[in-house]
């Protein structure tokens, strides 16, 4: 199998998954208590009958179920995710507006957790059983076990409320009217805590995996060879051991990238970060199911795209994989 057909296979798999999710959404609307039109329009009773009629007509709710399904799926294929009666806007436009914030947050957290996790893993693996190793191991255990939203709140308690170093929520300072570099710095300050919060869990798993792989790789014959040839210890650790230990970590990171998008729902809710995750939470609170299910579909699409991108990077990093 060459790289191209592998890629095409992955994309087909992704499209199949999105198709399955759209179908699931279709059936969920019908599984929810109440008239499907009212469910799609959001909070029953708050919607006027005229709008419900429009929804019934548009989605053919008096037609056989298979036809209804076809109308729904083909609508989604045209990127018509429905209309949010609550917000008086199309679901697609609402999501598109929020997408950049989510992308910034997840990409920052992805890079940050990978860099910090691998660094901590390498430090811990230098002397297994040492104080540094045990300290890092303990930290990783805590980050792995503690709920992300709780760590986020604790970070707010410490860094925003007690120390006053960083803003506790939002995307930028309201009413500050910053320009140019100041505005950028202001946004970066707002990004710090959400990025940290979203990263904790992933830092833990990358640290543990890097450490385990580094230790396993150090016992391989090629490391002995490098040492016998007189290579310096730092060079051996970084060029020989780390390079090989990194591959499974990258695979894991690819698998986790999708989950990170899901985790962003939590982070964005805690920090009032104006992304798709926060939009999902708001939709949830207002029982705006069209918006909720649309955002769910887009979240899944993002996860799939992230997975495919890391797969591509993986084939580039590891020349042994001919695919």
């Amino acid at each position, binding site marked *: 199998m060459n790289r191209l057909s592998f890629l095409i296979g992955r994309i087909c798999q992704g499209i199949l998954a999105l198709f399955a999710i759209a179908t699931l959404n279709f059936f969920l609307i019908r599984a929810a208590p109440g008239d499907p039109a009212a469910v799609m329009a959001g909070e029953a009773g708050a919607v006027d009958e005229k709008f419900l009629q429009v929804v019934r007509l548009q989605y053919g709710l008096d037609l056989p179920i298979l036809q209804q399904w076809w109308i729904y799926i083909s609508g989604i294929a045209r990127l018509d995710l429905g209309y949010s009666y609550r917000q008086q806007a199309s679901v697609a436009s609402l999501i598109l507006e929020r997408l950049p914030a989510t992308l910034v947050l997840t990409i920052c957290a992805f890079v940050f957790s990978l860099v910090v996790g691998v660094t901590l893993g390498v430090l811990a693996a230098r002397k297994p059983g040492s104080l540094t190793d045990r300290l890092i191991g303990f930290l990783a255990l805590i980050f792995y076990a503690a*709920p992300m939203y709780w760590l986020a709140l604790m970070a707010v308690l410490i860094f925003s409320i007690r120390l006053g170093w960083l803003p506790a929520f939002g995307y930028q300072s309201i009413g500050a009217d910053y320009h140019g570099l100041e505005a950028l710095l202001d946004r970066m300050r707002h990004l710090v805590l959400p990025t940290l919060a979203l990263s904790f869990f992933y830092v833990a798993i990358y640290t543990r995996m890097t450490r385990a792989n580094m230790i396993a790789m150090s016992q391989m014959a090629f490391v002995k060879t490098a040492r016998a040839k007189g290579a310096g210890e730092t060079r051996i650790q970084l060029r020989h051991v780390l390079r090989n230990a990194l591959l499974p970590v990258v695979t894991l990171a690819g698998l986790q990238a999708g*989950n990170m*998008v899901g985790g962003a*729902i939590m982070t964005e809710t805690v920090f009032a970060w104006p992304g798709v995750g926060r939009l999902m939470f708001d939709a949830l609170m207002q029982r705006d199911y069209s918006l909720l299910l649309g955002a769910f579909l887009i979240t899944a699409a993002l996860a799939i795209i992230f997975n495919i991108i890391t797969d591509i990077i993986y084939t580039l990093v590891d020349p042994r994989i001919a695919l």
Partner: protein
Amino acid sequence: MTRPNLLHKMFSRADVWLATLVLLVIVALAVAAPLIYPKGPWAMGGRPFLGPAGDLRFPLGTDTNGRNILAGLIWGGRVSLVIGLVSTAVAVSIGVLIGAVAGYAGGRVDAALMRFTEIFQVVPGFALALVLVAVLQPSAGSIVLAIGVVSWPPVTRLVRAEFLSLRSRDFVYAAQLQGQSSLRIMFRQILPNVASPIIVMGSLMVATAILLESSLSFLGLGDPNRMSWGFMVGASRTVLRQAWWMATFPGLAIAVTVLALNVLGEALNDALGSQSGKR
């Protein structure tokens, strides 16, 4: 495989002892909740916003409505533990069923079931769980269902891989020659051989399920009739500035429980792993 040897191996480590002790205390408190706080977690007994250690009746303080935080913690543990266990049982059942059929049947059935499993693996689990609970309305049943639905794929992959390798062993051929039904061979002959890795995976999954449940409750998608740790942290969000203890203690309870379960699960994994290595 001898059990005493396994237990001996596990309990030679201090952290395993500590984790077991912690879990036993949490379970005992959860079971005894109606005896310790008979009025339940919702009783408003004190002054609102009472800090910890201020009043002996409320050692961990009170919340915005004067409810006892410690009572909430002890009652909330019941929800976390029960939902963690039941939803894991659901996930393991789904996973074993699909994995066993895929691995034993092989061929096209296997390929189709694995495509199906992959779809669930690429969808962000938390988002799916959230949507399921939101649309089906929050209740203990819908939460268990949602956690089960998003957690089964790893079990399926594990069981399938084991079944694939075990189905061509002699004892399976012998059973087939005896004329045993496929169902009987799958669940009476092969499955017992896969028990140890499933138990290890299940014990770690309980921890993940507890985290998932608490996240859903935090967002207000918990069972509205039952106090839970996630709900308590969620309720504290708007008053974080005034009442740090409201967020801190329930979160700590979740972290400690999950940590203890993880330590036990991994110790079990090490012990069973080295056992099967000796065989």
